[in-house]
């Protein structure tokens, strides 16, 4: 049996949130409510897998990642990263992981890129040979070599993200956590970064946990997705299964005349309403689009309608709405 890179079982983490109602000067004594950020999550990740973490903001994704990187101590549950317990062996864990935060840089703002790389080299004890090889490799794919002398603050967002990812991989970690790595980037930059991630994953079998809201990135990169909401796992399965399970889905978008009339249908799933536009997901094996349109026409006057294939985003929305039923 192939051992797992990451093993998480019944992980629980709660925060104490201060009650903001009384902003008195003695706020040391204010009351707390306990909020469960992570409520019994379990999953495993195999070596070389790319796992996509999906979930609304506040779902518990970053808390889980923080526990995996050893920053937070779980309230209960089992957690193993590369065979060690992260919070018990913070330094050793740190050696085998790399982290990229889309919104918070790990680089030294005023210094040339090369300096940040060299600091990584010193802190992570990267050998001269590995350092040189990695620099060359990263330059081949990401063109990082062009920026070595430029201070980080002078780079564009796309350039900076490339450097961030290169820096996170310099010490050849076995696992990399990517938190919104492509946020704010244009299409071309996103493309390049995703290419790089895929390549590194294939070449070095780096296990990757990708947290993102961008479904296209998920579709391109991930082998598996884990959907989290309110601290609980809602869905855990590989992309192919998801696609085939929900792949038979189609989306019917109808634009009805009377937008104020409440909209109910017997077939399919209304996953979104935008004023007079209704988005309905249905399984093409169960109903045909024509039947659905006719059915709707009985109740509501239709201004316009269109039919689209579903993509991951809609599938996830469907998963959410199914969960909420």
């Amino acid at each position, binding site marked *: 049996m192939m051992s797992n890179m990451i093993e998480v079982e019944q992980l629980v983490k709660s925060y104490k949130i201060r009650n903001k109602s009384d*902003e*008195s*000067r003695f*706020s040391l004594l204010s009351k707390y409510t306990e909020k469960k950020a992570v409520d019994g999550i379990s999953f495993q990740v195999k070596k070389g897998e790319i796992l996509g973490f999906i979930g609304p903001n506040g779902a518990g994704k970053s808390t889980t990642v923080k526990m995996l990187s050893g920053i937070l101590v779980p309230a209960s549950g089992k957690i193993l990263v590369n065979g060690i317990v992260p919070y018990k062996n913070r330094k050793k864990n740190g050696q085998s992981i790399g982290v990229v935060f889309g919104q918070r840089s790990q680089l030294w703002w005023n210094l040339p890129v090369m300096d940040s790389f060299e600091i990584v080299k010193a802190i992570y004890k990267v050998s001269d040979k590995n350092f040189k090889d990695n620099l060359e490799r990263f330059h081949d794919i990401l063109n990082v070599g062009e920026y070595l002398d430029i201070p980080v603050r002078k780079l564009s967002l796309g350039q900076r993200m490339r450097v961030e990812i290169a820096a996170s991989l310099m010490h050849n970690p076995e696992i990399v956590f990517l938190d919104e790595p492509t946020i704010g980037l244009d299409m071309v930059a996103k493309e390049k970064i995703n290419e790089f991630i895929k390549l590194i994953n294939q070449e070095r079998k780096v296990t990757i946990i990708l947290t993102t809201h961008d479904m296209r990135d998920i579709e391109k990169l991930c082998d598996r997705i884990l959907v989290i909401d309110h601290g609980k796992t809602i869905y855990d399965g590989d992309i192919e299964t998801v696609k085939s399970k929900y792949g038979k889905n189609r989306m019917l978008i109808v634009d009805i005349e009377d937008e104020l009339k409440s909209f109910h249908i017997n077939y399919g799933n209304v996953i979104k309403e935008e004023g007079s536009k209704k988005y309905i997901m249905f399984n093409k094996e169960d109903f045909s689009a024509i039947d659905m349109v006719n059915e709707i026409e009985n109740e509501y006057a239709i201004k316009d309608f269109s039919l689209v294939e579903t993509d991951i985003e809609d599938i996830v929305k469907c998963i959410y709405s199914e969960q909420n039923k």
Partner: protein
Amino acid sequence: MILPYLLEIKLSLRDRLVFKKDVMIRIITSFLLSMTTMELWSVIMRTSDNSGTTEGINTIKYMLLASSLTMMIDATPGDEITGRIVSGSISRDLLYPVSLPLIILGKSIGKVIATFMLNVVPIFVVLSLMYNISWTSSLSSLLLAIFFWLIGYLIYFMLNLQIDMISFWWQETFYFHYTKEAIYAFLSGALIPLWYYPDWLKRVVNLLPFKNIMYVPIATYLETVSAEEMKWNCLNMGIWFFVFLFITCLIWNIGVKKTVSNGG
């Protein structure tokens, strides 16, 4: 016409009152700082046989007044213009039909009033009680001292503004603020009463504008100033006030012209 400036004062005042915790913390620090001075000076006066003398009592009173005035003066922001130039918002500020220096003055006055009400008054009262100080000067001395201090404050404000305006050309003005602080503290009587200074230093100080900010108002209130000295003080104050006014307006106009011509 004057309304926007009054509004600025009011807003600045209200701003300071928002965070109660903040207010408490500031009072504690200021109190401790003032108390250091008071403790030190009361020991010095006590152990140097000066405790009963007029000079001894006046020194203690002087130091308390100096601490209080320092608290108010420190509330004056020194980087309003620098901040706006660095962030680029100066171009927007110059479009408004109000004078930016006067707006900044309004803001400063608001902060000074807030500091006065929240910090100076409580600390002044507590320390006066702690060190058994009775304030016995006449009303006319008090009013005259207040008047002198207002002018002195404006002189300080203009000095501050001039340094702030250096940012039109060189953006890291806080070095100059440190230098200004150093020079001003030493030459204004903020550190120790000027009557202790050696004669040659007194002559230098008398020619410079700094004493108007601290020494002149305090000494006037404490009635340690002779009529002759008072005349010279007024002359010094008047001349320096107008000199600074001229310099400030000059630098402002040149600076604005430069900014506008460079496109902000």
